[in-house]
């Protein structure tokens, strides 16, 4: 039996059939199918790449936002600090000014007091002088009769009165 003896007829038909099948399928089946599969894979790959890009962009955007927020925060901080500084400065300036003013007022007051005091002293002196004169007049008037006594009185009075 020729199980392992190839028949020429079957070889011929197989070769012919396979060649025709290969030709027809290549043209009408494999080309469209592989093309479609390839297109689809390309589109999937493209979509994935796009999604990746979008994700990256989103990330960038988020990073930007964060940066801007940080900047804003820093700015606010700076502004607050400035304000605080300014406040301090104003307060300290005001203090200084007040001090100076007060000093000045105190000085003026002192000066006034001094001058008042001087005036008062002068007044007192004048009064004392007047009083002394009056006393002296009275005493003199009284003592003019007694010469000795007059002299003694003047003496003692002058001794008592001390000018400041």
């Amino acid at each position, binding site marked *: *039996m*020729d*199980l*392992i003896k190839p028949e020429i007829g079957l070889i011929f038909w197989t070769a012919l059939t396979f060649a025709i099948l290969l030709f027809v399928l290549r043209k009408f089946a494999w080309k469209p199918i592989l093309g479609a599969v390839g297109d689809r894979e390309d589109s999937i790959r493209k979509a994935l790449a796009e999604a990746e890009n979008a994700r990256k962009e989103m990330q960038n955007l988020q990073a930007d936002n964060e940066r801007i927020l940080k900047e804003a925060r820093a700015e606010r901080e700076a502004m607050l600090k400035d304000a605080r500084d300014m406040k301090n400065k104003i307060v300290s300036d005001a203090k200084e000014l007040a001090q100076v003013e007060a000093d000045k007022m105190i000085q003026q007051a002192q000066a006034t007091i001094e001058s008042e005091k001087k005036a008062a002293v002068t007044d007192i002196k004048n009064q004392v002088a007047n009083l002394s004169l009056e006393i002296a007049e009275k005493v003199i008037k009284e003592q003019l009769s007694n010469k000795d006594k007059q002299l003694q009185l003047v003496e003692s009075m002058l001794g008592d009165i001390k000018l400041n």
Partner: protein
Amino acid sequence: MSLALVQEAAAAVDYGAFAAIGAGLAAIGGGIGVGKIGGAAMEAMARQPEMQGKLQGSAIVLIAFIEAVALFGVVVGLMGVLG
């Protein structure tokens, strides 16, 4: 008497049967080879299950190579039987 018997037996011997025995021996060799590959592939898969696909593919191809040798034996045996 006994010589005649032996002669008769020798005449009755079908040499094709020896070819069948040869084919069987070839199948034993192939069986050992396939078994070793299968065992090694299984072990490798157990060690690295994530490589299963690759291991299966190469194991099948290797088995095909070994099997071809056994099949050569079978076909030579067939040639002997079918003359």
